[in-house]
């Protein structure tokens, strides 16, 4: 699951989804600020306007009757228990009268405005926290007057509105993230379907096509283009293959005739031994040519054909028979020959190709290992449940730099020039491995006294998906 999540996080669509979530969040925040100011802000502004009127009335009373009149007014009004709260203080800040024993601090930037919470007693007598806002100011000759308005129910409403706005913001964020994620998953799944098709085609199954859902979206368009391309490719491959079969047919008959004529000439006993020898060599060369021709055609078929039907292959049985088959050759060449094959190794594949692939590896080992050396064949089921067949030898080995190269067609190392062969054996093994969705790996083999021989490991999955 983890790798899929990582892959999802890397997709373009997922990044777009994140950007979308960011934009939605920014929009919600702006909305929230706007709604806040046009509701809660308005309530406070209305309340402040009333507090300002009350302040102005008291200011007028001070102008008409001085401190005594003002004091009287404040005491009377405070006693009415109206929505207003009052504090009157001397110029040095000492409280003269009012609802509080000290002045709430006014914010520095707007020195005349106050907004504070306080404790008051409700109708039932229990204390409640209230919120008030209003105006504080210094009158002529210094006394300080505060008039604030208890926001009361307005504060409760404002609190509710604020909570609703927060809820909306959080829900909006979650919804945009989830929808983005869903869109990304959907897109990732469809992109995955396309690349699965591409992989299947690469592994030789040219008949595979990408699914088109008929939604007419850009993925459908992409899948359709890909399918059109594959149709064209398959058609070309088909043409090439049928041409190949025809060429094979057309060439094999003349090659057979050519061989027959050489044989006939040899039968008719030419005059000199030299002639016979030349004819015999020509026949050997012709046979080499036929073998190369057959090997190339077979390799091409393994690499391009899509119509292999796989059956149950008894790996253990086949390997033990091959070991028995080649054991006398090893003995004759003075080689130690050891086989360690686990029981019950079975895979889905092509028995003929599998047998030939392992046979090629064993023959290579027998061919290149000098007398007195060792050849070992091991077959195990690995922890990842793949089957690994390793043929190890104590021959001259292959330099690490050349190991990939010798699996290519017709590549033979300088050191192998003296032995018979056309350089297609390992190519065929590698092609058979690919056909079975496995691989051929070349590693260090057995100790040969001066260094390491070669180990060729054929790793094949038990079933091919």
């Amino acid at each position: 699951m983890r790798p899929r999540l990582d892959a999802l996080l890397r997709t373009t669509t997922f990044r777009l989804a994140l950007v979308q979530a960011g934009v939605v969040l920014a929009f919600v925040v702006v909305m929230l600020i706007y709604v806040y100011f046009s509701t809660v802000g308005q309530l406070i502004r209305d309340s402040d306007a009333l507090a300002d009127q009350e302040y102005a009335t008291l200011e007028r009373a001070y102008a008409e009757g001085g401190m005594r009149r003002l004091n009287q007014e404040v005491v009377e009004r405070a006693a009415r228990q109206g929505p207003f709260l009052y504090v009157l203080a001397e110029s040095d800040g000492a409280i003269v009268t009012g609802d509080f024993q000290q002045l709430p601090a006014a914010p520095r930037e707007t020195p005349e405005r106050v907004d504070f919470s306080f404790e008051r007693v409700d109708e039932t007598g229990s204390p409640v926290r209230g919120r008030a806002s209003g105006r504080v100011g210094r009158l002529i000759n210094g006394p300080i007057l505060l008039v604030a308005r208890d926001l009361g129910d307005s504060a409760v409403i404002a609190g509710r509105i604020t909570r609703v706005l927060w809820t909306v913001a959080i829900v909006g964020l979650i919804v945009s993230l989830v929808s983005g994620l869903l869109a990304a998953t959907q897109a990732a799944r469809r992109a995955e379907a396309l690349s699965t098709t591409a992989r299947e085609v690469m592994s030789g199954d040219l008949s595979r096509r990408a699914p088109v859902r008929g939604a007419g979206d850009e993925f459908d368009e992409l899948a359709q283009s890909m399918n059109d391309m594959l149709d064209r490719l398959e058609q070309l491959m088909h043409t090439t293959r049928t041409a190949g079969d025809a060429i094979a047919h057309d060439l094999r008959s003349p090659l057979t005739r050519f061989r027959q004529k050489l044989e006939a000439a040899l039968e008719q006993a030419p005059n000199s031994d030299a002639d016979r020898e030349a004819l015999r060599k020509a026949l050997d060369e012709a046979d080499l040519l036929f073998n190369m021709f057959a090997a190339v055609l077979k390799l091409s078929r393994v690499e391009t054909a899509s119509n292999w039907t796989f059956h149950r292959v008894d790996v253990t049985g086949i390997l033990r028979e091959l070991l028995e088959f080649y054991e006398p050759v090893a003995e004759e060449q003075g080689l130690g020959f050891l086989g360690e094959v686990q029981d019950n190794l079975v895979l889905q594949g092509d028995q003929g190709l599998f047998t030939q692939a392992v046979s090629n590896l064993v023959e290579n080992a027998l061919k290149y290992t000098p007398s007195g050396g060792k050849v070992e064949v091991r077959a195990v089921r690995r922890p990842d449940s793949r089957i690994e067949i390793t043929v190890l030898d104590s021959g001259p080995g292959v330099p690490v730099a050349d190991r990939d190269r010798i699996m290519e067609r017709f590549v033979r190392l300088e050191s192998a020039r003296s032995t018979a062969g056309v350089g297609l054996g390992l190519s065929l093994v590698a092609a058979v491995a690919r056909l079975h969705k496995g691989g051929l790996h070349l590693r260090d083999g057995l100790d040969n006294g001066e260094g390491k021989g070669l180990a060729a490991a054929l790793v094949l999955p038990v079933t091919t998906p």
Partner: protein
Amino acid sequence: MRVLLVEDDLDMAASLKASLTADSHDVDHAGDGETGEQMALDGGYDVIVLDRMLPKKQGVSIVRDLRGKGVSTPVLILSALHDEDHRIEGLNAGANDYLGKPFSTRELLARVRALWHGRDAGPQTRLQVSGLEMDLLARTVKRDGKKLDLQPREFRLLEYLMRNAGQTVTRKMLLENVWDYHFDPQTNVIDVHISRLRSKIDRDFGQTLLHTVRGSGYRLGG
């Protein structure tokens, strides 16, 4: 013996006919599938050599129809397509042997003879070649009354050689019939198996039974 050769390549057919005639067979030739099938139905042949790709009717269809009509003459299919699946298709249709082009003339001659030789070999329980006796039920082998100790695969190798006693069998035939392998080994593995078998059946006895036929293969017989 009488051989029917169905081959559309006239040059090839002439050359094959010459080789088969030289090997003392009577050869009739048909140039297309329909003529070939009709000639085969008229009968009288010991072996039919059939090209796979023919004008008018393909080799595999001809075998299938011949077998459907009760003709049991041994059939050897020659084919440029000798992949495993093509070979199996040919054998399933009722062919007795399948040889891929290009092939050596000796290979073809050996196989034609083996087909004819093995045509009426019903279920046997004992095989005998000179002083060599094989009991297929008890799975024992004796030479001049002396019991020989053979490995299971050596037993099968000898059994095949004895069933084709007096005939040349090629390495390819041994590979296909004794081991069921359909590839060309790059080592002399068949020769090594033969020399092992030879050391068991011939070494302690005066007369050599298992002969090497130069350039072709092996032959068992006095």
